[in-house]
């Protein structure tokens, strides 16, 4: 590519290069640096570290789970949003605990600044503003920066050895994590107006696509979009419904002191589109770059633009519109639910039909953005690219959408880059362990045709994967890799012991139908018992819970003394909060015991299929009766287990049974 690069003699040796400083890049770089590796994080703009170019919030249905899980593993996003949120809400509280999910409005600028501060204070981590233009593998000539002759087949195994920047500096390294977000060959569209920039007019990264392709990495094009921002002074909030934060805020991070997040919160506002809005959109669809065929990338179905919604839900008379502040020190407001790539004049007309926005003034217009990203079948579950050892990737580059999805992958990719350098096994979470496991499995197994968004429905075992027990599920892994310290892990183990012991005690201990018990039940407006009844049965009654039956649980005080709860108390975890947390876990485990047991059964069946490993060198051409499509898909994906094979689209159950029995026969030979 660039002749200008040749004379630069800067040549550095580091352990890990992270390309990009968005939500994925920050987590990846922090993980590597925290694990003691010399890490450089490249960004096209240091001022845009941890930028939130779209919605001003973190979490939300199922995305909140990702953040909690990431926090349990030792990631930063949860802590950072706890420092910078301006409103917080636990969603779906009317539903079961599996779908409760945290969402917090962020002060965008503060979020970005706070993250930058963490990065800048992190040992072993260097931030470098420049565009990485090439990856360098052992198939390259390190001295020849042109790569012009290079054309490596995707079947050729390579090993990453470094990266080269636009200015020609070479960073030799043992691992690279690509977190390029939406910047690769980015193109922003607002009607007929097209700019070749990344989000917010930031510089696009135009070179690395070619270098990746020359190394046999296959890329494709996705699109996403963002709505307009309005000037608060032009919004009539009186015509909208005010949406408050929770009275009692739950922090994202298990390390944050819940008492520290009870702050004054700002409100958001709810309003609706109407027939007029829809008419304007329909009348101007021909000017939308998507419907006019100008956009090549595939957009997300689940985060659709307003024109998509109007077309797809044609019978809906209105759609929700959320007005959310971008921060405390700006008067910009985000118009949630109305992203669009229509021309600016249509946008303004359309926004102005919405109650409260009649006189709105746009600060930034809505736009769609197209970018290059990876074809997912090239990824291992560790997020390493199959044909290039040491090349990892995360975030929107992997075809996902959303800050939380990006951060979760960034953490895992960073951990696994580090694990590889340290000579340890990669961290791969499966679908029964974490939403992160579901996210990554979906990304690397399913041939997603649109940006992938985390959703509750994607997690099969969600009653076990609750946001409230992410620490109990995942601290162990965080500790194993070295991101969670001993003290934190030990308190988690202690907590689990107490919960288990109390849950069994609730099932084993019974009370008779004596006077005290009946009087207690009467006082709680609960029906009297006829025979001796376990505490668990009582807790299962909707009007009772673990805490409320303490009056008839005579042993409780003694038992708790033996638990030495005070050992779990520290500066961030007051006795009250520790007990609240434990009580909540006991309640959930007792009240939903039957469901949890059945879900665990499902997990057993799932694990059985996951544990049936497929040899890496299996020759699929030797397997009889596989259908051609299945054979091709299996050869392309090379699944690690029967379980993974069964989730590849194009591989039918019949093909999987063929594979199973074939593997059986291999074992017997």
């Amino acid at each position, binding site marked *: 590519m660039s002749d200008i690069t040749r004379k630069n003699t800067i040549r550095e040796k580091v352990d890990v290069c992270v390309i990009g400083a968005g939500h994925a890049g920050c987590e990846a770089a922090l993980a590597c640096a925290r694990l003691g590796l010399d890490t450089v994080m490249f960004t096209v703009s240091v001022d845009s570290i941890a930028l939130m170019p779209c919605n001003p919030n973190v979490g939300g*249905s*199922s995305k909140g789970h990702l953040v909690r899980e990431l926090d349990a593993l030792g990631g930063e996003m949860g802590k950072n949003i706890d420092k910078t949120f301006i409103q917080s809400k636990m969603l*779906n509280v*009317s*539903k*079961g605990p*599996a*779908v409760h999910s945290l969402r917090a409005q962020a002060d965008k600028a503060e979020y970005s600044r706070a993250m930058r501060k963490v990065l800048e204070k992190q040992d072993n981590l260097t931030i470098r503003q420049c565009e990485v233009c090439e990856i360098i593998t052992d198939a390259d000539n390190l001295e020849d920066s042109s790569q012009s002759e290079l054309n490596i087949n995707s079947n050729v195994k390579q090993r990453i050895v470094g990266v080269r920047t636009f200015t020609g500096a070479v960073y030799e390294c043992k691992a690279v994590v690509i977190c390029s977000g939406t910047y690769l060959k980015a193109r922003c569209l607002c009607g007929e107006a097209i700019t070749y920039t990344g989000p917010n007019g930031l510089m696009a990264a135009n070179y690395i696509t070619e270098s990746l392709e020359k190394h046999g990495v296959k890329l494709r094009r996705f699109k996403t979009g963002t709505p307009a921002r309005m000037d608060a002074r032009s919004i009539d909030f009186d015509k909208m419904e005010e949406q408050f934060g929770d009275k009692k805020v739950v922090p994202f991070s298990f390390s944050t002191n819940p008492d520290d997040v009870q702050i004054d919160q700002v409100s958001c506002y709810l309003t609706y589109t109407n027939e007029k809005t829809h008419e304007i959109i329909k009348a101007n669809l021909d000017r939308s770059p998507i419907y006019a065929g100008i956009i090549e990338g595939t957009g997300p179905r*689940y985060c659709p633009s307003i024109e998509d919604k109007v077309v797809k*839900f044609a019978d*809906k008379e209105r*759609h*929700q519109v959320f007005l959310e502040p971008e921060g405390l020190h700006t008067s910009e407001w985000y118009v949630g639910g109305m992203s669009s790539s229509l021309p600016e004049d249509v946008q303004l007309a359309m926004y102005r039909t919405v109650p409260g926005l009649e006189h709105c003034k746009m600060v930034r217009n809505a736009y769609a953005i197209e970018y290059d990203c990876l074809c997912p079948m090239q990824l291992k579950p560790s997020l390493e690219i199959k044909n290039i050892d040491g090349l990892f990737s995360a975030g929107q580059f992997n075809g996902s959408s959303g800050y939380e999805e990006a951060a979760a992958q960034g953490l895992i990719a960073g951990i696994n880059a580090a694990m590889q350098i340290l000579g340890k096994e990669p961290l791969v979470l499966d679908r029964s362990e974490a939403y992160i496991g579901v996210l990554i499995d979906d990304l690397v197994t399913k041939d997603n045709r649109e940006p992938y968004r985390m*959703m*509750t*429905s994607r997690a*099969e075992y*969600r*009653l076990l994967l609750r946001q409230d027990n992410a620490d109990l599920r995942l601290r162990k892994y965080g500790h194993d890799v070295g991101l969670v310290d001993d003290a934190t892990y030990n308190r988690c183990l202690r907590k689990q012991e107490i919960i288990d012991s109390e849950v069994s005690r609730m099932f084993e201990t019974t009370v008779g139908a004596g006077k005290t018990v009946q009087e207690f039940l009467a006082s709680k407006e609960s029906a009297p018992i006829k025979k001796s009844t376990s505490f668990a049965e009582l807790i299962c009654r*909707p009007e009772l819970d673990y805490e409320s039956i303490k009056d008839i649980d005579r042993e409780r005080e003694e038992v708790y003394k033996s638990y030495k709860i005070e050992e779990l108390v520290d500066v961030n975890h007051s006795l009250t909060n520790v007990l609240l947390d434990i009580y909540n876990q006991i309640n959930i485990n007792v009240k*939903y015991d039957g*469901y949890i047991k*059945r*879900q665990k059964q*499902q997990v057993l*069946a799932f694990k*059985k*299929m996951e544990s*049936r490993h497929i040899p890496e060198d299996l020759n699929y051409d030797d397997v*009889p*009766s596989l259908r051609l499509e299945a054979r091709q898909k299996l050869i392309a994906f090379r699944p690690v287990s*029967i379980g993974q094979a*069964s989730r590849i689209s194009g591989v039918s*159950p*019949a093909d*999987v*049974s*063929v594979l*199973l*029995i*074939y593997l*059986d*026969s291999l074992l017997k*030979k």
Partner: protein
Amino acid sequence: MSKTIAAIATGMTGAGIGIVRISGDHAIAVADKIFEAKSGIKLSDAKTHTIHYGHIVSDGQVLDEVLVSVMKGPHSYTGEDTAEINCHGGLFVVKKVLDAVLTHGAELAEPGEFTKRAFLNGKIDLSKAEAVMDLIASNSDFALKNSLKSLGGNVSNEIKGLREKILYEIAFIESALDDPEHFDLTGYPDDLKVKIQDIVTRIDKLISNAGSGKILKDGVSTVIVGKPNAGKSSFLNLLLGEDKAIVTDTAGTTRDIIEESVRLDDIVLNIIDTAGIRDTDDEIEKIGVDKARKYAADADLVLYMVDSSIPLDENDDDIIEMLHDKKTIVLLNKTDLETVTSKDDLRNILGDVYIINISAKENIGLDEFKDVVKTIFYNGDLNYNEDVIITNVRQINELRECLSSLKLVINSIDDGMPEDFYSIDLQNAYVHLGYIIGEEISDDVADEIFSKFCMGK
């Protein structure tokens, strides 16, 4: 390289011809060791798909006169080299021939192993494998037709339909969780309950038909009861056409339970002959009588043998008590003699039942008996032309699992649980139906399918 296996491929029936199948790399060589062709040709020199006449000789002894077919892989049932020895000497001789094959280098095939190999060698797919093995296990023409229907997709279509309905509900709940703005769950639990109850009804029907299906596949479990010397054993012999039960004129001779299969065109009756029922002090006979009561209680059909030449007594009262709620055919025997007990006498006591005049001695009433049996099992509560009948035990078990999951969904609705809890059990119901038609894979299913059937195929 596959080891060479052998087994009797025709099942353990009393059929005159039995086939010993040998499959594997050395199948033809093994057959050569014990086969002496009339033409003198070695089987290993024979062309594929040829049949050879000769004798099986083992340890210098001629075991049977046979035809041996030679099929070379991949154009055989298993896809491997195969020799099939068609024996003529009945079950005993077939077993002898198999022994000879096994002592000359073949190993006894595991249950279902031929079909498993056929499957592994790409000759058949999994669902066909299961249907094939059902065919082999089926005992009657009806069961055969039903297995063929399974192959043709009758079961699949019904199950697929139910699965789609369940999937729709799962998808709806999930959509509502993901996109509450566009999917509203208000009033949904009540709607869902109605829909689930409809599915439950359909699965209940499949299961109860499965019972009928089982009758037609495995035979109707039938018990003959009656007072001693009423002619039960004689009648059974008449049906069988041979003298199996001990028949004497001394009352109380049949003390052991004798079970025989009788084929009446499409229907197989598995008939248990019982000791005559009378108040007895004889200990051994007493045990027989108790057993008879027990068998009658479990039977699908009870044949009540009445001696028309003697009056009904208190022993008949005991028997009549056993017939309560049972499908019964009364056989009024010895109608060649002077009649003391008439059809009308019996109707007065038993109400509207099938009563047939027979004479075991004179061979009277047999055709009428066959007609009545067919009437009961074809025109009764079973309409096999329209209903989907699942006869496979594995499939029935999956249906039961599905049913209990659906009932748990109804419980959740009744308990007022939030909608996201329904998914767990709906998902289970969906998966269990999937196991039936192979759209869900479990590690065990393939093994299970291949291991539960007869040694043959």
